[in-house]
C-alpha cells in the first residue's frame, strides 16, 4: 500500500522516523512510567514531561473497517484495504492498517503484531499490523 506521508517536522515525526529503523516508538512519561497516545503537550496521566520509548509491538485488534472506496487517488488501486484501531499491550490505542489479512479472517480481539512499511516520504515509515498467527 502506498501510504500518504505524515508531515515532516510534526509532533509525531520521531514515531515515523523510528519506524524506518524498524522500531515502534511511543510517547512515554518518565515521571509516571506510562505510555500515552497520541503525542501531546504533556503526559495526560500526570502532566509530566513526555519522552519517547520503544514498545513491544504486540496487541489486539480493537475495531476495524474494510475500505472499499479509497478517497486518496493514490490508494484507489489498493482498495479494498483494512483500517483499524489496535490496543497495544502498553495500554495505548493506535490507528493503523491491518495488512495481509482477508476481511473474513478479521475479528475484534484477535492478536496483532507490528510491521513497518514505507510512506511516500522516504524518511518516514509507518507502523502497520498483521494478525499474530501470520506475523
Amino acid at each position, binding site marked *: 500500500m502506498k*501510504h*500518504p506521508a505524515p508531515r515532516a517536522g510534526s*509532533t509525531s515525526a520521531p514515531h515515523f522516523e523510528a519506524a524506518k529503523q524498524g522500531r515502534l516508538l511511543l510517547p512515554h512519561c518518565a515521571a509516571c512510567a506510562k505510555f500515552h497516545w497520541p503525542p501531546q503537550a504533556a503526559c495526560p496521566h500526570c502532566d509530566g514531561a513526555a519522552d519517547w520509548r520503544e514498545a513491544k509491538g504486540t496487541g489486539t485488534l480493537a475495531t476495524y473497517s474494510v*475500505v472499499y472506496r479509497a*478517497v486518496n487517488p493514490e490508494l484507489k488501486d489498493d482498495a479494498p484495504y483494512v483500517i483499524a484501531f489496535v490496543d497495544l499491550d502498553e495500554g495505548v490505542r493506535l*490507528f*493503523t492498517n491491518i495488512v495481509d489479512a482477508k476481511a473474513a479472517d478479521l475479528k*475484534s480481539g484477535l492478536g496483532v503484531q507490528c510491521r513497518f512499511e514505507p*510512506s511516500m516520504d522516504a524518511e518516514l515509515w509507518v507502523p502497520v499490523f498483521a494478525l499474530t498467527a501470520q506475523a
Partner: protein
Amino acid sequence: MPVAIVGVGELPQGQSSLPNTMVLHEQLARLALADAGLALKDVDALLTLSPRSDAYLIHATGLAEHLGIRPAVALTLEAGGAAPAAMVDTARGLIEAGTATTVLILAADMPLGGVSRNTYVSNLAEAGPIHPDLERPYGPSVPSMFATVARAHMDRYGTNAEHLAAIAMQNRLAASRHPNAHYREPFNFEAYAKSKLIADPLRLLDCAPVSDGGGAIIVTSVERAGESRKSAVNVLGSGFSMGHLHLSAAPSLTAFAAGDALDRALKQAKLQRSDIDVALVYDCFTIAMLINVEDLGLAAKGEAGPAFVAGRFAPSASGELPINPHGGLLSHGHPARAGGMGNLVEAVMQLRDAAGDRQIANPNVAMVHGMGGVFATHGVLLLGRSS
C-alpha cells in the same frame, strides 16, 4: 435579554441549479428576511461558515460585500456540525451585549455545484476530521472512521444491520413528507441490505448524501421579536462539549460527549430531558444517530438500535419522542460545512406549527443537536414556542 428566531429560509437540498455558493447565500438571506418581514439594511450582524466550495479570507465579510451591506459585525465561525448552535449562541451574546440587534445567520455550501463531488470527498478526507499525520497515511475515508465506531458498538452492544437500517428507513420516510429533502423515496430493508458497502460495516444507505443546500435564520431580542411577521421561536438554552478532534484521541470508541452539551443546555434553560417534545439529532451516518441518541441520554447505552426498530423515535403519532421529522442529514441532506443547519430550520418550523404534512402535534420544546468531526464536538440548542 432573551433572544428569539424570527425568520428562517431554506431551499431544496440536493443538486442546486444556482450558479455559485454566494448566490445560494444571497437567496437564503432574502428568504429569511422576507419571512421575518425585515430588509437587508436591518441586518447589523452577519454570521456565516466558511463553505468548502467557496473560500475567502473572511467569508462573512465577503458575503456582506456581495450583498452590498456593511453590518457592524461580520464573523465566520468554525465548529463543524456544531456550528449552527454556536452561531445562535454567538448571536445571543451580540444581542445581549448590545453589539447588534438583528443577526443574520447563514450556513450554506454547494459541494455538488461549487466543486466536483470527487474533489469534495477528497478535500473532506484531507482537511476534514482525519488527522494529517496519525490517520491519513493509512488511507481512511470519513465513512470508514464512522465504520470503526459502528463495529466497536456492534461488538460491545450487539448493534446490527437491522438497527442501522431502521434509522435509515425512518429518516427516508420522514423526508418523503418534506418538499426540500434531497432524497424522498422510501426504501425497505432488502434495498438497504443490497446497497453497496462503502466501508464495512457501513453501506451507502448508512451515509448522508452530499448535498448543495443549507439555511438561514434571523435572531433578534424577544422584545423586538414581538413586532415580527410570524410567530417567534425563543432560544431557551444552549450547551457545548468536546471530547477530541481526531478519533485517535477519543477516550472511548463507543461513547462520546454529546450528553454534556445537552446537560449544560438543560441547566441553562431550567428544563429536563422529559420536557423535550421533538429532537433534531445530528445523523451524518446511521451510526452517528444511534450513538448520539444514546450519548444524549434519550436511550440507555446499547438500547437505541432496538428502540428505533420499535418505532420509539418515529416522528409520527406513535413515536414516544419524535426525532428528525425532516429526515435528518441522512435524507433531508448534508450540505457539507452547513451540515446540521437543516436541524435548526426544522425545529423552528415545528415550533411554529408550520411543518405541513410532517408536523408533530403541539411541540413546546425542541432540542437541536449538532456534531462536528467524528463525534468530536457537540452543540445543543433548546428552543421553545413563544407563549
